[in-house]
């Protein structure tokens, strides 16, 4: 049984190739981000980030081999223990971890450090899969919904306490998985409506326009439908509720920490504070925007190379790509991500049991969120939140956690013939 477990032919090579393509492009970009031109250091030089990243890549490959060699059932069995283990790590991190910029994100010994928040992602994904795999689990029912959310929210609360809002936000990407698993559509419509309203309320200077729009829409809805008193009262109540929401939003925003307020306001107008909070977004857009159609050429970028863009090798690594390879380079990388995500959806759908499928969708959800939000923030479509671009950004924790996340699923997928059909 164990020998047959590693069946090379059943590994989804398309996904593996995209993974390596992204890791490789990312590695070259990390070198470009630190490349100086004056100090000619090789991409393999361990004193610079590209050399260190090579170590992370090497160890990630070792991890892949371990994962692929393991028994596929191992992850199912480990799901709950891992979840609990990482919850404990998250609890103790603030007490034993190392403080950087007011955040305590990592623990470890000496220079070997890991961020439990990163690894808790796949543990949570496994736990959710384990928790939801029972045939009786039905997300259309409120009590199951509550239980699923509880599993999700436990690590979120702990991560917010660190505080690492960006990573915490990632957990809500599981809503994509919940959607697939049958969470009623009305929640999504309501949610998207509210987000749109929030964005409009924050983006439009004068709330009166928005209030007028709400009044007009409610008026039209009342006018075109049946004019029963209940309906008129209901719509009017919704309208008043929305207007109250619009006005309370300003109050809520004003209660947020100043740096978060600024991030939100700068999104709508980066020129508000071009040297302060707007600096990152402005410089990031300059770097990417100056790349043009085909880019300035590898190692020719000036903005990223000369530190105009902060954190360019981690969260803002996409700037290096945009500057040096232009729109065509961005197109290639975005196409790789879109292909990878689509491929993962297809793979998830072909799983024979719910556990693997739910886990697959968790992988899709997490990668989707990172990909979408990271790039969106570098081009000013989203407030700056500190989350890495999967496989691309520099750093061991990030590369390892995404590699583990992805390859556990590839392993499950390659073993699907061995699994009993347990679809409910």
């Amino acid at each position, binding site marked *: 049984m164990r020998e047959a477990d590693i069946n090379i032919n059943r590994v989804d090579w398309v996904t593996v190739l995209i993974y390596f393509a992204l890791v490789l492009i990312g590695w070259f970009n990390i070198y470009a981000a630190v490349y*100086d*031109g*004056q100090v000619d250091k090789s991409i393999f030089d361990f004193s610079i980030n590209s050399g260190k990243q090579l170590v992370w890549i090497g160890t990630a490959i070792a991890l892949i081999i371990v994962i692929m060699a393991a028994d596929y059932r191992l992850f199912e069995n480990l799901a709950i223990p891992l979840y609990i283990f990482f919850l404990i790590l998250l609890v103790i991190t603030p007490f034993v971890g190392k403080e950087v910029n007011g955040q305590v994100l990592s623990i470890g010994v000496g220079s070997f450090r890991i961020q439990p928040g990163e690894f808790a992602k796949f543990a949570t994904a496994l736990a959710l899969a384990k928790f939801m795999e029972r045939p009786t689990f039905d997300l259309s029912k409120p009590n199951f919904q509550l239980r699923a959310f509880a599993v999700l929210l436990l690590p979120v609360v702990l991560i917010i306490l660190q505080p690492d809002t960006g990573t915490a936000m990632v957990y809500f990407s599981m809503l*994509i998985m919940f*959607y*697939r698993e*049958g969470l009623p559509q009305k929640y999504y419509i309501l949610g998207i409506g509210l987000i749109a309203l929030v964005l409009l309320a924050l983006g439009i200077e004068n709330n009166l326009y928005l209030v007028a729009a709400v009044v007009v829409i409610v008026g039209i809805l009342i006018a075109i439908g049946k004019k029963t008193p209940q309906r008129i009262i209901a719509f009017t109540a919704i309208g008043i509720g929305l207007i109250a929401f619009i006005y309370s939003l300003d109050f809520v925003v004003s209660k947020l920490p100043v740096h978060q307020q600024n991030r939100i306001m700068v999104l709508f107008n980066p020129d508000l504070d071009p040297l302060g909070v707007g600096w990152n977004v402005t*410089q990031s*857009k*300059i*770097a*990417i*925007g*100056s*790349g*043009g*159609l085909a880019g300035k050429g590898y190692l*020719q970028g*000036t*903005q990223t*190379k*000369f*530190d*105009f863009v902060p954190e360019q090798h981690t969260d803002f690594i996409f700037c290096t790509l*945009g*500057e040096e390879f*232009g*729109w065509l380079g*961005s*197109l290639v990388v*975005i*196409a790789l*991500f*879109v292909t990878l*995500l*689509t491929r993962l*959806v297809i793979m*998830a*759908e072909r799983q024979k049991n719910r556990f693997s499928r739910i886990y697959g969708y968790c992988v*899709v959800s997490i990668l*989707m969120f990172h*990909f*979408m939000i990271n*790039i*969106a923030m570098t*081009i000013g*479509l989203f407030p700056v939140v500190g989350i890495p671009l999967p496989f691309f950004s520099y750093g061991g924790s990030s590369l390892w956690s995404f590699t583990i996340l992805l390859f556990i699923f590839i392993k499950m997928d390659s073993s699907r013939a061995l699994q009993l059909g347990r679809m409910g």
Partner: protein
Amino acid sequence: MNDQRPVAIIIFIFLVGLVLLTKLFMIQVMDDSFMKRAERNAIQRVVDHPYRGLVYDRNGKLLVYNNPIFDLMIVPKEFEVGDTTRFLELFKISKEELIASYDAARKYSSVKPSTFIKQISTNEFARIQDFLIDYPGLFIMTRSVRSYPEPVAAHALGYIGEISSRQLERDSSDYYVQGDYVGLSGMERFYEDQLRGEKGVKYKMVNVRGVDKGPFKDGEYDTASVAGHNVNSSIDMDLQQYGEKLMMGKTGSVVAIEPKTGEILSMISAPFYDPNSLTGSDFGKNYTALNALETKPLFNRPIMATYPPGSIFKIVQSLIGLQEGILTPETTYACNRSLVACHNHPSPVNLFGAIRNSCNPYYHQAFRRIINQEVSSNTYKDTEIGLNAWREKVLKFGLGGELGVDMPNEKKGLVPNSAYYDHYYGNGRWKYSTIYSLSIGQGELLVTPLQMANLAAIFANKGYYYTPHLIRAIDGDKSKIPAEYQIKHEVGVDAHHFNMVQNAMAEALYGTAQRAIIKDIEVAGKTGTAQNPHGEDHSVFIAFAPKEDPKIAIAVYVENAGWGGRAAASTASLMIEKYLRDSISRPELEEYVIAGNFIY
């Protein structure tokens, strides 16, 4: 389970990709403003200043060059001192100075270079050059300042200085920026366009803190600066130096011209100053000090001081009279001292005698005939017509207007016309008796020493002159000098009229200026004594030599030095001998002139 949901998720994935790519297309392809902002961010334009052209004298001797000076720069973050004692010895500074300089540099920026030790000399630089490698964070920046091997011809050469905001506003060449150096006076200003060269541009990359990160695209867009043109001046450095020696301790001017070309051989404005004092960082301090002096050493007397020409003007009167046919060599007048004072000489005199003896009454009478030609029966009207007609002829001698020498701020002098007298006396209320002092070069007449020297050149040339100029060639090419210096100006008096005048001038030396006589060199000259209402008269002398083939024409003005035969004639004579023979046969005369101190 709902089968549309996986499809919806795939559509969502594609939508996200599409939105991101659209936004990227907007900022990367549609909008090129980011490109410019990126360049402004990271690419710094550094101007490479060209070497200013050199100035040579007429014999190829260097007058002005660029002296490199070295500033030791420091980047505090990279700086490591190592062995402090050795460092202090090498750079010859104290420990306190080192700490103070380092702290000041750190305060400015720890990553950008700032000046550590200013203006290290070439010798010092040679000494420390090899050791610099031991000290990271230190490097040398080279600048250059104008320098003068001999401290001569300060006024003619002029000086350079930082361009003023007013000049910058008026400048239409688009060449200058704030902080640039520009010729402010003398040849430096006049030949600014030739001397300044072309600026080069280097594009270098800087990071977010302004730290230099090397050339942009390996210098693909860089342009090298082009050094300015070298200028060959017509000045004879030895003659200039000798003249300045003679004029030491005096106030006045010496202008020597090569008559055949109009080239200025020497141009002295006394008191003078060391041109090296108006260079580099001491410019402001020294300029203020020089400007405050009562002797006004910055005042460029040869072209800016105006004096009555005195008796020298009698030669111009003679020539106009001859050309008009009013005078002939035989025209004789009595030395009638009731008209105007004179000195002892035989009377009556003909024109030759009048020049030789500088007879005032002769010119009083001759000038009356030039002015009052009885064109009008009204004496007043007749004088007015006569004066204006006469003035036109005088102007042809290069008087009453700027000659156009290649220096800024040349003064016009004054040859009055009728309107001038109308202004003072009223229309029709003045006649010859009002203006007769013009006849002997006094009264309202004003000329510059340069105009006087030019007169001497006209007399030497028998009736023509080239606008006096300080330029001889540009980059060794004589044809490149401005066209106006290659035009021959005729003064409107026939050459043969000059013969007698020249002879009389040569003879005159034996009367009024015996000190000017040089053995075996025939000098033609004329003394003048310009009345000075403020003190001792100004000593004036013009001359040219050798009489038969004039090689030098000269005018000397020594303020407050009494009559022309003394200080001025002696100086001119020594200058002539120096130029023609390169040696002085009369050391006692030289001594006498040098000893003369006429500054009041």
